[in-house]
Structure formats: C-alpha cells, structure tokens
C-alpha cells in the first residue's frame, strides 16, 4: 500500500516536473517582471516595468474613436466637450468607452484612472507641420480640427466632403501620437548616452532607471500584449476584436478577465497582427522580440550606465523596431490604396449604370479615410520621406474624388472645406495604382494586401524570361 502511494506520488511528482519543464521550454519570454535594478531603491516595487501612461492613451484613443461616430449631423457642443475630454483634457474619472466588457469577454478596468491618471492625447502629438492635411497645422491642431468636425458629422460621416472622421482621427492618432512618440523620441534621442542614463532612476524615487523606462514607454506605445511571443497573429488580432475564443490565450494571469494594461492588443500592434495573419510577414513577433531583447539588455546592465557596446546593441534592436513598425504602416497604406482603387471603379460603373450607389459611396469614403490616416501617419516618424511624401499626399488628395468630380483643396478662414474641380473617378483609381507603385518602390513590402498590379507581374512571369532573341 505504502509502496503504491510512493509510486503514485513519484509519478505525480515526475509528471509535474515534466509538465513544468515542458511549459518552461515552450513558453517564450514575456515583457513583464523585469526586476528593479535602480541602485539604493527604497520603495516596495518588485518590478521595474511600467507603461501605464501609454496604455491609458491607447484607451483614450479607442474611446475617442467611439465618440467620433456618435454625431447626429448637427452642431453638438455636448458631444464636442466629451470628445475634448478624451482628446485634450486630463479630466479625472473618464469612463472607458472602448474596450468594454461583453458576454464571455470581461475587461478588468472601466475607468481610465485605473490605468493612469491625468493623461491626454493632444499633448503628445507630432509637433511638425502636417503636409497631408490642408491648413499648415501641427498634428494636435489637425486632430482638434477633425474632432470638431466629427462632433457635427452624421455618425462620423461627412458625405459632402467625403470624410469618415472616426477613421481619420483614429488612424492619424496612431501615427501622430503613438508612432511618433515611440520612434521619434523614445527610440531616438532618448537613447543617447547622456539622456536618461541607466545609472540614475528615471525620476527621483522611481523603481526604474532612465533607460528602462524610456524603453518601456516605447513598448507601451506599440500596444501589444506582454505575452505576444506566445500568441499567434490571429489570436492577437482576435483579442482586439473582443472575441470570446481569444480570452483564454490572452488571459495570461488567468484571472478570467482581460487586463487592459498587459493583455490587450491596440493600434499598430493590431495592424501588425492583421497583416501577419496573411502568413507572408511576421511583423508583430519581430517587433515584440526586439523590444524584449532590448529590455533584457538594459536589465542585464544592472543599474549601471550602458557601455558604448551595449548602447550600440540597443540601437540595433531599436532599428529593427523602427523599420518594421514603418513597414506595418506602409503595408496598411498599400492595402487601403488597393481598396479605394476597386471602390472608385465600382462607383464609376454604378453611376454609369444608374444604380443606387449610396452604400458603395460610404464604403469608398470609409476606405479613403483609412488610407489617408495611415498615409499621414507614415510621415510622422521624424524621418524626412522627401519626394515620396509629396507624391503620396498629392495622389491621395485632401479628400477622395467626389461624385461631381471635385475634391477638397483647402480650408477657408472659418474652417470650412473648399472644393475645386478635379479628375474623374477612373483617373483617381489610377492615382491609387500609383500610390501602390510608389509604396512598393520605396518600402520593402511583403504582404502587399489588395495588390492591384500583382496580376500583371504574375502573368508577365508566366510568359517567360524575356531573354528571347530568337531569329527566323
């Protein structure tokens, strides 16, 4: 009997060891629990990881997008004030409007303050001039302009000028705030040797060093779950969609809920996952791995100043992040140019056949809004894209080509759009082709969603090598 018990105990023990061993070997590192390395730290924090402010901004962005679709088509000061609260103010007790719990998918937090207090979006937006939007404004001014327009729009749409504000605000915020802050500030000048050094706390009494926190903030802006390396792209994508079946995989601390700070997919991480789902790319894992590798490197410095060799290695990780992040945005821009291309042609055909094109027109505006937002975001990295940006902005325009062959060409002193006659829908479709070509020529795209020129190159390849000089 005793022997029996002993054997079963041993069996259970060895199974448990085996199980723990196997989970250890299969699970990839997560972006969490890096220890405190600040010298002489007096507080009680057990980890130096902290990026609550960034997550709060992601949730502000999600909520703002939600509000942007709630206009009733008339001036609406109440809605505008609410939007301002999420965009520019730092009000206490703002409710989280998105993501919110739904059946089978419970969210832990309901209030922004549970993530971080006193945060806004406007204060962190790209400070350069936004050339893709009329009016010579900074990014914060462009977004404020869009917020105001959205508050008076018809469920987010302005059909007269071809604007879908939830899309424009959302896609441009991702670039102007998250992408810009991460790649133009944290992964750029804040990695310099004498800025936020690693042998000092980030601020007095903090549990994290200068470089640890700089790196964490950049990671926070990317918006991916801490355990991304253990998730596939489809799951990371499904989490943001609030799909029940993604809950178990996403809920890494197994508390039955999604913790917004560590278990949700936001913004460009969501688009990386969306692109990767196609199987041709691995942006989400590549970027996340570079973040984790960089964070490990900083942690390993153990609260000492980074050596030149360590810093150059860190810059290498930062480069991987920047390059791939830019590609994520360029892939999305490419894809939506393809969508607008098809929409424009279908719209033209529908008009010629006297069909009801209302739904088609809405879809066209929607896709153009995404295209515009992503293309403007691509230009907020602080890197000068030169002629590529100029061409991109001209081809995409300040609005889609509208049904009377007009396009928005400016904004007057009162903030009203001005329209001028422009090309027809076929010509505009052609411009979308050129956008795709321009992006393919200037970025190392791999996914190339909705590639309108792919058929041409596939058929050209099928027709043979072209070295044919046979003579008869």
């Amino acid at each position, binding site marked *: 009997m005793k022997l029996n018990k002993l054997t079963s105990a041993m069996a259970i023990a060895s199974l448990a060891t085996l199980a723990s061993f196997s989970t250890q070997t299969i699970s990839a590192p997560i972006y969490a629990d890096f220890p405190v390395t600040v010298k002489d730290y007096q507080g009680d924090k057990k980890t130096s990881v902290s990026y609550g402010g960034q997550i709060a901004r992601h949730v502000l962005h999600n909520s703002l997008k939600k509000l942007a679709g709630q206009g009733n088509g008339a001036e609406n000061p109440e809605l505008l004030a609410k939007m301002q609260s999420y965009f520019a103010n730092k009000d206490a007790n703002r409710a989280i409007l998105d993501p919110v719990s739904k059946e089978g998918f419970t969210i832990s937090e309901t209030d922004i303050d549970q993530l971080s207090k006193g945060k806004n979006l406007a204060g962190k937006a790209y400070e350069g001039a936004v050339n893709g939007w009329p009016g010579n404004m900074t990014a914060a001014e462009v977004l404020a302009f869009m917020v105001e327009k959205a508050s008076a729009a018809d469920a987010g749409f302005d059909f007269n000028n071809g604007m879908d504000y939830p899309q424009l605000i959302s896609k441009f915020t991702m670039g102007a705030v998250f992408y810009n802050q991460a790649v133009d500030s944290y992964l750029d000048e804040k990695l310099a040797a004498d800025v936020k050094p690693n042998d000092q706390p980030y601020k007095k009494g903090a549990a994290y060093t200068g470089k640890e926190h700089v790196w964490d903030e950049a990671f926070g802006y990317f918006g991916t779950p801490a355990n991304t390396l253990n998730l596939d792209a489809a799951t990371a994508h499904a989490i943001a969609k609030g799909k029940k079946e993604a809950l178990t995989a996403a809920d890494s601390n197994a508390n039955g809920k999604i913790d917004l700070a560590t278990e949700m997919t936001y913004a460009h991480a969501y688009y990386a996952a969306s692109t990767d789902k196609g199987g041709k790319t691995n942006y989400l894992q590549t970027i996340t791995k570079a973040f984790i590798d960089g964070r490990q490197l900083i942690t390993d410095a153990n609260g000492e100043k980074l050596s030149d060799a360590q810093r150059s290695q860190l810059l290498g990780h930062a480069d991987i992040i920047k390059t791939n992040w830019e590609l994520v945005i360029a892939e999305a821009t490419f894809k939506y140019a393809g969508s607008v291309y098809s929409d424009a*042609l279908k719209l*033209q*055909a529908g008009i*010629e*056949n006297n069909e009801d094109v209302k739904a088609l027109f809405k879809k066209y505006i929607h896709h153009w809004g995404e295209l515009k937002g992503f293309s403007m975001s691509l230009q907020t990295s602080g890197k000068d894209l030169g002629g590529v940006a100029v061409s991109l902005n001209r081809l995409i325009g300040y609005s889609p080509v509208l049904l009377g062959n007009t396009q928005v060409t400016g904004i007057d002193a009162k903030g009203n759009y001005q329209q001028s006659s422009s090309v027809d829908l*076929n*010509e505009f*479709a*052609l411009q979308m*082709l*050129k956008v795709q*070509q321009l992006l393919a020529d200037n970025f190392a795209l791999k996914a190339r969603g909705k590639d309108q*020129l792919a*058929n*041409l*190159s596939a*058929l*050209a390849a*099928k*027709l*043979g*090598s*072209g*070295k*044919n*000089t*046979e*003579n*008869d």
Partner: protein
Amino acid sequence: MQATALFHLLGILTWQLLVMTSFFSEYWSDLSQLFSNSQQRLYFGYLLCAAIIAFIWLNNTGQNLKHSLIQATGFKHWFSQSALADYKLILINKIIFLLMLPLLVTKLAIATAMFELMHQSFSQRSSIDNDLPVWLIISAFTLFVFLLDDFARFYLHKLMHQIPWLWEFHKTHHSATSMTPLTVLRTHPIEGIIFSLRSALVQGFSIALFIYFFAGKVDLYTVLQVNVLVFAFNVAGANLRHSHVAIYYWRWLETIIISPAQHQIHHSTQPRHYNKNYGAILAIWDKISSSHCYSEPEHKLQFGLNRMQASSEHNLYALYLAAFINIFADCKRFIRQLSQ
C-alpha cells in the same frame, strides 16, 4: 603607408574578382539555359524531337538507316565555317546581352504603363465582374498572345528585309551558308535588341489588355511553362527550319503553317526566293501580303546571301562591324546626294 596601399589594392582586386565571378557564373548559367530551359527553342527535348522527326522523314524517303541517322544529326555541318561563326556569335552576344539587359525595357514596365493608360482611355473596368467562363478567358488569352506574337514576328522580319539599314543588321543571320538549329541565334546584337523590344511590347500589351478587362481570371495554358501552342510548334520540329532536312507539308497545310522547307526557301540564294516566307509559325501572314512561297521538294537549295558569297562573310568583322560601316557609308552617300 605602403601596407595600407597594398591593403586597399587587395580589397579592390577581391571586389573585382567577386564581380567577375558572379558575371561568369551568370554567363555560364545563361548559356546552359539555352539547352536546359523549355522556354528556349534549343531546349534539348525539342532538339531530340527534331532529330527523331528528321530521321523518320529521311528513312521514309528511301534513304538507308545509317545514312538517315547521320543526316538527321546534321553532323557534317557542325564544324563548317558557317556553324563556327554561329557559335562565336552566340558566345559573344551572350556577353553583350548580359551587360545590356538591365538597360532594356521589360514587358512588365510596358504592361504597367499600358494598364495605367487604359484607365484613361476606357470608361470603366466594369467587365471585371463579367460571367464569362474562366476557360474561355484563358483560351482567348493563350490564342491572342500566340497570334499577336506571331504576327509581330512576321511583320518585324519583313521590315528587317525591306528597310535598308535594318537589312544591314539582318544580313548577319542570312550569311549562314550551312544551317544547324543553332543558326536561330546567329543574330547581330542590334537585331537581338530590336527583337527583345518587340517581344516586350507584344507581351506587355497583351497582359495589360487582358488584365484590364478580366483581372485575376486571366491565365495562360502552358506545357512545360510554355504557351501550349508554341510548345506544339517546338515539339513538331521547329528546329528543322534551320537545317538541311527539307521537310515539307501538304499544300493546304503550307498555306496555314510554314514548313521547315518553306523557311529554308527564305534562306535560299535563288533570286526568285528572295523576300519570301517571312513568317515564323503561321503562313497566313505571308499569304495575305503576297510573300508566300510553297516548298519546292524537287530543288536542292543553296543557303546564304547570294550564290557568290565570300567566305569572309563569316569573319567577326563582317558579322558585327560591316553593318555599321555600310550604314555609315550609305548615310554619307545620301548627304552628298542631297548637297549636290
């Protein structure tokens, strides 16, 4: 100081060596592709088919087995002065083409440009959503490319004969006095460039046209990665066009398709055969433009520019440079006439 200079020199030499190595590896790979790639006329499979057809033909016309076999291989022509010139041209042209290729416009560039142009010329791409069966679209594309390509070959070939300065370049091909399948590549490089542009234009246009109207439904019916119709032509002994085996067809078939014997007439030194049978695969183009000539099995043909052709026509000078010199002389003469 000296050490650094030496180091630099070594660096440059290594770099040059690397460039040269990659160039030569591409060169050899291109040369071997001539026989190993089924998209090429000289693919070993097609050569084998040609030899078998020639053997059966010769054997059936009453020649004995051994004689048929020897003649089918065309062995006695392999080392003729004319064939040696063919080989030299092939080897040198490949180098020229490897260097030129990046400069030549590709069919994809033409297809893209034409595809974009079509957005401005046609009102809509609504036909993308048509209900035509896919097999019909693929068949139409396969046939369209085949016909347009064959017509373009015919027409350009005709121009090569009729326009004096083009003829100067095309003479390189016609100075072959004995023919082997490799004679198909006996071409002046300028003509090679013109031919590759023609091919890019035809294919680029076809691609753009069909993709514009049928988008992803367009495809090509192929066998061994070759247009099924071109494949049939190659398997049916296309390589015998440049040979001494005068296979001819029934008259009705020779009205539709050029037989090897008909193409050999095109190379004949008989003045009455001059400027006949320009066609590549189809004879109908010649029929329409009155340059058609049926085979003449009773006559033994002599190949070359004319009956008194000098052997110096196989020199590299005659093959490569004479065309430029002659064109230059013609221009001078023309200017002199103008000024008088």
